[in-house]
């Protein structure tokens, strides 16, 4: 067919489709590469699990693929079907580790031709997005025939490990094929698949090498324009190869500048806080001011709601119930507080020295006496450190302070009454204006470890993001299937690239 006629027809078709459904949800077609009896065709009987009604292993595998595809379809629009080639294969594994699977955009397209107005001219786009932008299937348009593989022209190629859980392939740990996220000790296949399909839809650097900074055919990928280096203030578009390499290992300095993502970030990422202990009060004297602190690994973290009260020191050493008093068992806060100490710390912040028993034990005893919080003064001159330990029943905040600060406070507290001191502690973690996982300009950070980790670097969110994000390099257990604000930044990033939402 004459090229201009063909394009005209394609354009008409595209225009009709666009007019009919300007916001048509995407359609994702899953094409199996599995032979009979394997993968999607595995007839092994299984019981339905976690909302997956399949009764064979093959059915359940396909149901997860379909459910993941449905989630992506509900988040993106395109008039051109997105083709995902899927195969279950014997991927590398041993007793302690395994390749779960892999995926990615199989073809990229760039255009400098006005007949094919593909996004930013001379810029590489993953095929699914490229098709969406032009409104037709580019391989068909250019007459591209399959390369004989059967999947040469697909948008996304995927493969997952058919042996996971078998002997010598992470034995006993399987793909969890439920749809409810309750993977338990197994691998949450839904989360893994959503993540990998995200890469295939465009969440990746693509055709540019993060190892060398070089570009395929000298053309940038669409991803590059959205990465701003916080040190040089340049995007990757304006960098040399060497500058791109350096930027790719500029730890926690590479931010995503896309408008959709930056706008969504405050809705998704936690506001950053800085823990703080402030001493004040009429009797504080020279102890007034902010003090160094170490946070506890138990109890509530300090937060923007302050806990403020007079500081009251313990005056007696105690021993746990049922334990014989002695030099290794009797210490500050180690047992139930004496009546005098209990009266003193009720509704106050208890001050006690480190030593003899665990930090968590001390805090729990103060909590039982009605303290609102605890300061544990180091008994050694040492750099500030945290309070280790665990006790899930502790509900009051506690921090460790330096010996020098503890000693100074005790001097000021010498003139207290039985129930007040006039030396006040405020435990707080005020917002610091930053988002957890974003730079000072509110740009979510990309993962840029030094040294570079191929496949992980630049093509994922930084692991400082909180809450955990689908497109961090590690798949966390607490991910949901919501891919946009207020839970996740995946869809906002894809919108920056050129996708649209229904």
């Amino acid at each position, binding site marked *: 067919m004459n090229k201009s006629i063909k394009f005209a027809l394609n354009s008409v078709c595209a225009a009709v489709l666009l007019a009919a459904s300007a916001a048509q949800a995407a359609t994702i077609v899953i094409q199996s590469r599995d032979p009979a009896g394997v993968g999607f065709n595995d007839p092994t009987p299984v019981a339905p699990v976690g909302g997956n009604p399949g009764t064979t292993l093959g059915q359940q595998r396909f149901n997860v693929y379909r459910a993941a595809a449905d989630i992506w379809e509900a988040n993106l629009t395109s008039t051109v079907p997105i083709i995902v080639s899927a195969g279950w294969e014997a991927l*590398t594994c*041993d007793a302690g580790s395994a*390749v779960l699977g*892999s995926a990615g955009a199989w073809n990229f397209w760039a255009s400098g031709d006005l007949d094919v107005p593909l996004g930013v001219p001379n810029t590489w786009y993953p095929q699914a997005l490229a098709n969406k932008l032009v409104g037709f299937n580019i391989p068909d348009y250019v007459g591209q025939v399959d390369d004989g593989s059967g999947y040469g022209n697909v948008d996304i190629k995927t493969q997952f490990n058919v042996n996971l859980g078998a002997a010598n392939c992470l034995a006993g740990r399987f793909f969890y094929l439920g749809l409810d996220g309750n993977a338990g000790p197994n691998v949450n296949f839904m989360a893994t698949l959503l993540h*990998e399909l995200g890469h295939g839809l465009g969440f990746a650097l693509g055709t540019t090498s993060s190892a060398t900074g070089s570009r395929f*055919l000298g053309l940038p990928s669409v991803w590059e324009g959205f990465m701003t280096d916080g040190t040089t203030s340049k995007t990757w578009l304006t960098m040399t190869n060497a500058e791109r390499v350096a930027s790719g290992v500029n730890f926690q300095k590479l931010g995503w500048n896309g408008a959709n993502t930056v706008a969504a970030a405050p809705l998704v990422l936690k506001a950053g806080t800085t823990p703080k202990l402030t001493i004040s009060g009429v009797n504080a004297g020279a102890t007034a001011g902010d003090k160094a602190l170490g946070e506890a690994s138990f109890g509530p973290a300090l937060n923007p709601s302050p806990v403020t009260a007079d500081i009251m020191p313990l005056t007696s050493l105690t021993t746990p119930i049922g334990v014989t008093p002695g030099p290794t068992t009797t210490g500050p806060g180690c047992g139930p507080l004496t009546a005098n100490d209990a009266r003193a710390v009720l509704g106050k912040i208890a001050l006690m020295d480190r030593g003899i028993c665990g930090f968590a034990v001390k805090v729990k005893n103060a909590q039982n006496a009605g303290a609102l919080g605890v300061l544990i003064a180091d008994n050694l001159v040492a750099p500030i450190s945290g309070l*280790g330990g665990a006790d899930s029943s502790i509900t009051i905040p506690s921090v460790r302070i330096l010996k020098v600060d503890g000693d100074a406070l005790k001097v000021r507290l010498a003139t207290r009454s039985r129930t007040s001191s006039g030396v006040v502690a405020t435990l707080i973690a005020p917002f610091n204006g930053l988002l957890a996982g974003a730079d000072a300009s509110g740009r979510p950070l990309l993962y840029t470890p030094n040294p570079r*980790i191929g496949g992980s670097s630049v093509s994922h969110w930084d692991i400082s993001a909180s809450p955990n994000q689908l497109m961090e390099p590690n*798949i966390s257990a607490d991910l949901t299937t919501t891919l946009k604000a207020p839970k996740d930044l995946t869809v906002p990033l894809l919108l920056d690239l050129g996708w649209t939402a229904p």
Partner: protein
Amino acid sequence: MTKKINNSAKLAGMAAVLALAALTAPVAISQGAEGMRVAKDAVTGELRALTAEEHKALDAKGAADAGKGAGLKRAAAAAPAKSEPTLIKHNGSARVYGARMSDELMSQSVVVRMADGSLQEVCTDPTHAHSVVKALQSAPQASPAKALETE
């Protein structure tokens, strides 16, 4: 509280990955795509099929490699050096360029059973999968309670 620990595990795990990421090194190609083995002829410098002796030697080497992480190591060694896409030579006349990726350029998720029995899952690429696995397997227990003094 859970989040604190989760983040700590996340950070510790990835820190271990970072520490050993630089260990990945290119390995001479001795085994090509699955089911196909080739050798570089010492005289002509061209690729050719293996001799029976060379097949045996490669089999023996593979057996010797068997063990923890060896599977991924072999996979890394087997990966063809296809480090960039290939140009799609299409029949159209439009000035549209096509790039075909390869399996080596895909994102790849690996999972490791940690010493405490938990699983750590990381997305990397086929070239770096072995070093990522090795790093995670040598990572210390990621528990803030163990990192801090408790009394």
